[in-house]
């Protein structure tokens, strides 16, 4: 291949890589170098080979396919225009200098700022919200429960037991049940092959991953503060945990829990959660969770806990679909229902009936006893590994 052509293509390639990067693809210099090396190996006049080659180098997930396809179209036409008829198989370029670093990296200013504007617009689109939302910056500290003290101690004890799960990896232990041949052998070599010390091992304890999605819509008002207090405690006990609240839309509050003390956290949450006491769209919020968060968080098979009374204003079909997806992501799916503790309660409302088939454990939420039952369930998870 001739240097001039290579150089010209390289500058286009760099620009293309940059555009992809702006769209959120993970482009590294190493990848661009490899892509350039790949282009030397193929016939540049065949469009699909060209596309496949760049695709294999630049994308790393199915979701990137559409972004790539869109930008490639643009890239290809630009390149054709710039290099014109010279990209034909029979083409023999004239020898010349390769393109210099400055030239390849210099991009027109205007283009860059245009890209930025585009990005800003996208962000604007993403933050739209539904008209049903009741925008009330509610002050939680108005509620003053009497028995926080006892409750907190009970919860702390419960949570510390829960925070582990058993792994399939092993670590040495004097009272382990299994023999550790590897270590025993090494030890025996020290005594000329006499097996004086036997080393045992046991399963390594691994933190259990928990994801909690809590309903804070109007119908949950009575128990919301109590539950948040419990979740706040959970965050401290479980090293790997994620917390979300929702009514008409989903809000992640893990970071607030992590940074703050309880009173500050409460204030921050009420500031961030704009749709507090709004209507309920369980299906829609679960969809957002499944699409935006679940992929990254589902590693290490988490226990997912949903807290809601099941009064859903959305379509039952959507809820069902999303419950199905959620269940697949989770090690166990637990639904805590604050109404379940009250006598005569029957899960008759549409949302609850739709969701029930996908739930592993359906438990009461507002009594300490109910939370203890949930604790037992999580403990059983830990023991099974």
């Amino acid at each position, binding site marked *: 291949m001739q240097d001039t052509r290579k150089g010209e293509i390289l500058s286009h390639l760099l620009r293309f890589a940059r555009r992809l990067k702006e769209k959120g693809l993970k482009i590294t210099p190493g990848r661009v170098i490899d892509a350039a090396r790949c282009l030397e190996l193929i016939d540049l006049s065949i469009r699909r080979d060209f596309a*496949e080659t760049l695709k*294999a180098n630049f994308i790393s*997930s199915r979701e990137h396919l559409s972004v790539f396809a869109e930008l490639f179209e643009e890239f290809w036409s630009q390149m054709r225009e710039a290099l014109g008829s010279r990209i034909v198989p029979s083409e023999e370029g004239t020898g010349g200098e390769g393109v210099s670093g400055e030239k390849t990296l210099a991009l027109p200013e205007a283009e860059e700022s245009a890209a930025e504007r585009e990005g800003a617009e996208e962000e604007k689109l993403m933050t739209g919200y539904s008209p049903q939302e009741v925008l009330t910056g509610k002050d939680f500290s108005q509620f003053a429960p009497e028995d926080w003290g006892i409750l907190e101690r009970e919860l702390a004890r419960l949570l510390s037991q829960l925070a582990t799960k058993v*792994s399939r990896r092993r670590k040495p232990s004097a009272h382990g049940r299994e023999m550790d041949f590897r270590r025993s052998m090494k030890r*025996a070599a020290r005594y000329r092959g006499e097996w004086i010390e036997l080393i045992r091992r046991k399963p390594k304890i691994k933190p259990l991953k928990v994801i909690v999605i809590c309903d804070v819509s109007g119908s949950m008002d009575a128990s919301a503060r109590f539950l948040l207090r419990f979740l706040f405690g959970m965050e401290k006990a479980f090293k790997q945990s994620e917390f979300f609240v929702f009514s008409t839309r989903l809000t992640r509050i893990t970071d607030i829990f992590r940074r703050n003390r309880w009173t500050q956290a409460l204030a921050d949450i009420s500031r961030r959660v704009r749709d507090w006491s709004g209507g309920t769209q369980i299906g829609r919020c679960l969809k957002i969770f499944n699409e935006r968060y679940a*992929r*990254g968080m589902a*590693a290490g098979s988490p226990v997912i806990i949903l807290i809601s009374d099941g009064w859903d204003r959305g379509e039952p079909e959507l809820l069902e679909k999303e419950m199905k997806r959620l269940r697949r992501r989770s090690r166990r799916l637990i639904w805590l229902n604050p109404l379940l503790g009250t006598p005569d309660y029957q899960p008759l409302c549409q949302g609850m009936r739709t969701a029930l088939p996908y739930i592993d454990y359906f438990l009461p939420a507002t009594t300490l006893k109910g939370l203890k039952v949930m604790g037992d369930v999580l403990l059983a998870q830990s023991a099974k590994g």
Partner: protein
Amino acid sequence: MLATIEEVQSAMEGAKYITDRSTATVLYLSLKLGKPILVEGEAGVGKTEIAKVLAQILATRLIRLQCYEGLDVNTSLYEWNYPRQILWMKQAEICELPQEKVGKGIFSQDFLIRRPLLEAILNESAKPPVLLIDEIDRSDEEFEAFLLEVLSDFQVTIPEIGTLKAKHRPHVILTSNRTRELHDALKRRCLYHWIDYPSLEKERRIVLAKVPGVRQTLLNQVCLFMQRVREKDLFKRPGIAETLDWVQALMALGKEELDAAAVRETSGCIFKYYEDLKLMEESGAENLITLISRRDDLTGAQIPCA
């Protein structure tokens, strides 16, 4: 051999792996660059098969590492052969061998059990082997980090022996079912390839290549049926593996063409979940059959047999 994309593709088809040009392109680039390929796609579309076929057309060994949660260095890289070491030590004691000789002896390569990764590194033959790391998404992050190290320079350090380096870098293929997201660092080191469900035409050619005795009518109907079934919202959509199973099952039962009864009898080949079976029963496999038989003459005429 394998100097162009066309040659890779035809070699693969020669090995009965019907593929499209994009797969061949990625394989070709991987061979040329010596870069691993990360293959993703739904279950049963032939991800693992790529590695097997590659080993076949390169006439080299296939070394397979099946991943699972908790997979660690001892089961993926190497382990000392403890019983043998003990026997040797006892023997040395009886023969009164000097102590340093014992120490050196039991920690030599003879006492090493090679697990897949070490096997790939120490492979002695002139041709580099194909290393298949299957379902990498099932292993945990710790193993992924370790794998990253191995893949970057193909050398390992065993404290008792020293550093071992691969003479020839193996061709590496990783597969993932996307049950979890892989780490970016690992992805960056690989060429990426997504395999989709096959098109009607491709599926027909695959079935024909794998099940040569299949009758034309049955072939058309089965492939059309599968295409339609995959449009439905199933828990687990059937892959090519299921198509092949199904065709063979139908042939074993002596069916010459598809009807509702035949589908009912053999539905276990296609649907692997009770929910899916039920969905198909309710939404009417019969409807699909009628749809297919109506279109059958048309497609039979349109698509020439490959």
